[in-house]
């Protein structure tokens, strides 16, 4: 807890009881890992682990965990283990125990005993109700261990006796055919049982009572946070591992192998995947047009949204009095922020496309993404300006300067870090958006390298209004997220253009991820930097 000092007043010695409870928590952790591994078929259900069939091993471990939990609870009730239990385990624990028993009761009554839907419902209510009562009525040490321990032992016995073996199958009998297989049920049931067992064991480790519940809850909350971070790492690592081979095809390092930039200077690296377009005669195909398209999209959206958003934020914080108008703008901004991206796409399609030559164009894509970026910029800039202390403004006003001068030379510089960070994070978000550009900007699946947009060189002046034209801006082009979507939906037809379609797709995903995440890395890094600067002041 923030602000509270952590200190352990009583440093108890580790006793045998602690060791047993700790080992039980450890056992549930092992089961959890095994279940996850089996879920993703890292561990096969039909084979053996250490000489034992996998399902039987899981069953045995579950029974051991269940028995350990029960023994701990009963031992505490009989006074062999010193604990501080409350009079009841409480409603949340009771519901927690009732739900799995409800499912088991319903399943057994309706399917195993063949009593049908009504019988299943009755069985579910009876068994679930019993579990609820068994948790809620006895003292906490029994209530929070025995029903859960029995659950674990029951599931373990079902696995161990082979009632649910590796070949078990439950056809749901639906019109659109679907079945629950052992392949899914065994790991899923083990996963939930491991969580319940770990929860009960952690409560026991904390000696029940307030401390026990604290311990039980912390185990689950920490596990949740750990899983989220773990999921993120697995996701990124997975894309990197799958994408690298495709990205690195034909890579060359050495003087003069790369394409020419800035006239005659030749890059010492040649990475065809990001330096080539798609052409018939290319040795290696690449996604250069999509990368350039993404860059121009982001530039256009930022040029449109940042001045607009920051200006509106200035008006709202510095000039406007709080009232109906500011409230309406706030509601509208938050509404825009949560509007689905595909709706922005539809809007761009109905509003912008007919106004820019009635076809998909880079400019329409830029503006659509700009509309999406605007609320983000407005919200973050406003927060940054509101957090500038009023003393700054008062001090500046006391010097006799006008309001705008105060804004320009005091408020804006002080709010700049927040604005910049917000803009960068917002850009990361829109750079990965597919849905809006799908309807407003994107062209074919493969864009030849010769069609890489050159916005700066595309401007030309004309004799009639609107006097300035830029065909490059009014052309459909590609961007990384759209490229990936097009590659996925093109399916088999890809083979004629690219030698290794799967590798090409993963490499595109990797490049997209790298582009987007580097915006995030810069944004988060900038915030960290600015915060440290503030602390040093």
């Amino acid at each position, binding site marked *: *807890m923030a602000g509270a000092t952590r200190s352990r007043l009583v440093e108890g010695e580790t006793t045998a009881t602690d060791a047993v409870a700790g080992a039980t928590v450890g056992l549930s952790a092992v089961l959890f890992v095994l279940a996850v591994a089996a879920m993703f078929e890292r561990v096969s259900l039909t084979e053996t682990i250490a000489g034992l069939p996998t399902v039987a091993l899981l069953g045995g471990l579950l029974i051991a965990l269940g028995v350990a939990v029960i023994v701990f609870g009963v031992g505490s009730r009989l006074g062999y283990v010193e604990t501080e239990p409350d009079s009841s385990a409480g409603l949340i624990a009771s519901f927690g125990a009732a739900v799995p028993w409800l499912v088991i009761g319903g399943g057994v009554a309706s399917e195993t005993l063949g009593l049908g839907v009504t019988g299943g419902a009755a069985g579910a209510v009876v068994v679930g109700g019993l579990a609820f009562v068994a948790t809620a009525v006895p003292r906490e040490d029994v209530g929070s261990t025995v029903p859960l321990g029995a659950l674990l032992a029951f599931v373990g016995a079902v696995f161990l006796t082979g009632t649910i073996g590796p070949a078990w199958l439950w056809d749901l009998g639906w019109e659109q055919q679907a079945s*629950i297989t052992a392949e899914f049920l065994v790991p899923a049931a083990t996963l939930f049982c491991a969580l319940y067992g770990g929860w009960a064991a952690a409560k026991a480790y904390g000696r029940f009572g*307030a401390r026990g519940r604290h311990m039980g809850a912390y185990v689950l909350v920490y596990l949740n946070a750990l899983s989220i971070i773990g999921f993120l790492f697995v996701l990124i690592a997975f894309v990197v591992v799958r994408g690298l081979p495709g990205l690195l095809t034909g890579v060359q390092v050495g003087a003069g192998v790369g394409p020419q930039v800035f006239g005659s200077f030749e890059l010492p690296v040649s990475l065809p995947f990001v330096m080539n377009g798609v052409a018939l005669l290319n040795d290696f195909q690449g996604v250069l047009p999509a990368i350039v398209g993404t860059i121009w999209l982001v530039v256009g959206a930022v040029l449109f949204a940042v001045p607009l958003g920051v200006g509106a934020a200035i008006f709202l914080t510095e000039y406007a009095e709080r009232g109906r108008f500011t409230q309406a703008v706030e509601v509208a901004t938050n509404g825009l922020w949560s509007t689905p991206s595909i709706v922005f796409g539809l809007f761009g*399609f*109905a509003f912008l496309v007919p106004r820019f030559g009635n076809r998909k164009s880079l400019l329409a894509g830029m503006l659509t993404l700009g509309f999406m970026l605007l609320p983000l910029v407005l919200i973050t800039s406003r927060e940054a300006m509101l957090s500038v202390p009023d003393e700054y403004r008062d001090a500046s006003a006391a010097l006799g300067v006008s309001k705008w001068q105060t*804004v320009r030379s005091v408020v804006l510089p002080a709010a700049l870090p927040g604005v910049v960070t917000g803009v960068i994070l917002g850009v990361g978000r829109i750079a990965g958006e597919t849905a809006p550009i799908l309807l407003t900007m994107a062209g074919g699946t493969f864009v030849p390298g010769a069609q890489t947009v050159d916005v700066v060189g595309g401007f030309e002046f004309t004799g009639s209004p609107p006097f300035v034209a830029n065909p490059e801006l009014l052309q459909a082009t590609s961007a990384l997220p759209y490229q990936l979507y097009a590659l996925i939906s093109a399916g088999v037809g890809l083979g004629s253009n690219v030698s290794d379609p799967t590798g090409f797709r993963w490499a595109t995903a990797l490049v997209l991820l790298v582009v987007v995440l580097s915006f995030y890395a810069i944004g988060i890094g900038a915030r960290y930097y600015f915060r440290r600067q503030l602390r040093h002041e």
Partner: protein
Amino acid sequence: MASATRSERLNAAAGQQVQRVRDFVDDTEPAALIVVTLIAVSLLTAFVGFLAVSNLTVLPFLLFVAATGYGWARHQEETALILTLTMTVSTLLILGLIIVFIFRESIPVIQYETATVFGVRVPGLRMFLQPNWDAVSPPIRYSMVPMIHGTLLVTVIATAVAGPLGVAAALFLSEIAPAVVREFVKPGVEILAGIPSIVYGFIGFTILSPWASDQFQTTGQGSYLFVGIVVGLMALPTVVSVAEDALSSVPESMKSGSLAVGTTDWQTMTSITLPAAFSGVSAAVLLGVGRAIGETMAATVMLRGVPRLTEPLVNVFYGQETLTSLIARNYGEADGLQMDALFVAGVILFITVLVISIGAQYIEWRMRSKLGGEA
């Protein structure tokens, strides 16, 4: 009575506004006033020209640029004011334009799908009375029922994933995690929000869908269950960050008071922090629901793209189509009424999410005024 006082109040407010404008006119030099008026009028003309798809739009726009440049050099104070004001108004304007344009496009199909109930002709009702979508062979019907069913299933599953996990993660970040751990986990959650939806969709399409099809022995690939789980993971960061804001806005004194009585951290959380921040946390879950409803690309790539109901309705192992994926999949070959029907799907999405957003804001506003903190 109520209406009378309301109109009086409105009159008073309008009077105040007029007074403020009058004060502004009185206080400003005539030259600056002319520049400001020129800026406003030229921008308005340019906007009207843009709406009317006129080639001459550029003329008033150039005038606007010139007037702004001159105003910036000579009367910076007033120019800055009028510029920031127009920027604010344009935010409102964009929302208004979105409403006008997506509604306007959807009108023809709403008229086409008129149904008669109890002798009353209700435009658009037939889209919700029967579950048949057929854009090719007569009778041509554009029913929204299968897509609403799909969106509902996906959203329910996504909320079941994102709600509990998100609130637990928010508790961890705001109350439990040591500072060092938070420095790592918080950016992690932000990065999770940054992973593009098409990347999630791609992994779901290549890895998850075949796996799920194998596990549940379904015919073909694509299930609402796994789209729901993926969309739930994508909505997770929204829930975490909004809920964390709500939890950390509970005054420290309330928590310290509870801890001083001798409770554990967990007791303080369940009996003080969570109840106090309850409305903020529910707003977070609500915003997560909004994100889940609007998620497009993962659903488009992972679903089957056949607009019909699953048999039976609770069969989550088959995934047909959601409102968002309908638009993304069909915009290409659609024209005429079918295109307009896509706009109807957009209107349903837009209204639902807007209502959710306003509801969440109202809940947050009530929580802030209850806790007595400043906005």
